[in-house]
């Protein structure tokens, strides 16, 4: 359980980091290291060099812009969890974050690291997929943006450009009006890799009917997926409305069998969690409207 040798660089600017990454195709980015370091220890990954971006101040800020809420790639999960700006403007991400790892891994693990790794059970990736956040890379002098649906292509396989540095995510601001969110998952132990996870966001019209509903499912297949739940729009979001819309939306949900859970179980759990997440979101939105 000891990593193979590599060299280490701690650049002081984003430009320096990009230069180091594009000069050596075997170089990898080191952020919080909560996934990369175990992979090094198990020798699943043998980079020639690690480029440590954890001290790049430019990647450590959370800011509101006209486009949305920009979260730097090196923002630690623990820092995001206590951010008032994220709680107010990206409530679905705020609801997902307590499910990410444990306090000691959140203390080091970063928002960008979770996205770059592309684990299908990653909660941050699921929130980004549901909200259609923009994933921003710097490649040499160019900026490249990806939508989550095109970025995640398989378990830990992404469209990350060669020699690129993930600099951050841009989440859309929460819409005006009565908005509620819900995030549910099931795992064998608290904060372990989930067998199934569901996130939902609901916005209500003034009369209490559904104006907008978003739903996404993670952990069940190769990538987190956003699910079309537009059947809910215009309904009063009763338990029957939710059940009907979820059943219809998840009929074709692709689930995988593995050592930990069967595809049948994952499908059943995802359906149940989706109903719970939407119910939580409805209740929160109703509370916000009152």
């Amino acid at each position: 359980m000891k990593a193979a040798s590599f060299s280490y660089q701690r650049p002081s600017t984003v430009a320096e980091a990009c230069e180091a990454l594009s000069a050596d195709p075997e170089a990898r980015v080191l952020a919080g290291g909560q996934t990369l370091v175990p992979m090094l220890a198990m020798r699943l990954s043998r980079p020639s060099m690690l480029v440590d971006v954890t001290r790049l101040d430019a990647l450590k800020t959370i800011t509101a812009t006209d486009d949305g809420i920009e979260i730097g790639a090196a923002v630690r999960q623990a820092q995001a969890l206590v951010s008032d700006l994220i709680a107010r403007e990206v409530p679905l991400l705020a609801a997902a974050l307590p499910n990410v790892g444990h306090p000691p891994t959140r203390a080091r693990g970063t928002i960008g690291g979770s996205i770059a790794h592309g684990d299908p059970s990653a909660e941050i990736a699921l929130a980004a997929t549901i909200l259609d956040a923009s994933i921003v890379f710097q490649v040499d002098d160019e900026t490249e943006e990806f939508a989550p649906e095109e970025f995640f292509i398989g378990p830990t396989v992404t469209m990350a450009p060669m020699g690129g540095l993930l600099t951050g995510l841009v989440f859309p601001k929460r819409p005006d009006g009565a908005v509620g969110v819900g995030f549910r998952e099931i795992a064998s132990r608290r904060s372990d890799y989930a067998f199934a996870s569901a996130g939902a966001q609901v916005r209500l019209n003034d009369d209490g009917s559904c104006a907008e509903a978003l739903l996404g499912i993670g952990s069940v297949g190769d990538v987190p997926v956003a699910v079309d739940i537009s059947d809910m729009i215009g309904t009063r979001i009763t338990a029957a409305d939710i059940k009907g819309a979820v059943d219809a939306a998840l009929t074709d949900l692709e689930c995988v069998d593995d050592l930990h859970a069967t595809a049948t179980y994952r499908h059943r759990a995802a359906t149940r969690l989706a109903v719970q997440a939407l119910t939580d979101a409805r209740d929160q939105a109703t509370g916000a409207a009152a």
Partner: protein
Amino acid sequence: MTTELTINGRNRQIDVEPRTTLLDALRDDLGLKGTKAGCEHGVCGACTVIVDGEAVRSCLMLAVQCDGLDITTIEGVSPADGEMDIIQDSFCETHGLQCGYCTSGMILAARALLARDKNPTDETIREAISGNICRCTGYTQIIEAIRLAAKRLRESNLVLAEAGE
């Protein structure tokens, strides 16, 4: 690579390969064997130390990443040679340990929690040690130990250093 660390209040300089984890540097280069090597890939929590006020896994940090950071290990918590601090004492009194392998990690996870939350609920305590595996106690006495330590710390004059940010 030469790396400077502040460990238990003392400045230490070490020369390590980049692949050396903080855990191995503590145990092998600095002789601080109180930090335990368990799974060495971030699952068990036995190697938990406090870095800049937060509990982290020392097997998931490279020593070179810790350059200039403030690290507390189990050796740094006792007030004097041969004495135990309030949290250690509470673990003894409530039988919060049997084999002891997870204990230094548990105590440091508890210390990071109690530095930011003087009066944690059992739920908060469970969350704080959720990343630490114990195969002996069944956890109940560990939770009891942290509850007791919280009460004693509230009644004492001690202030635990909190995370910087």
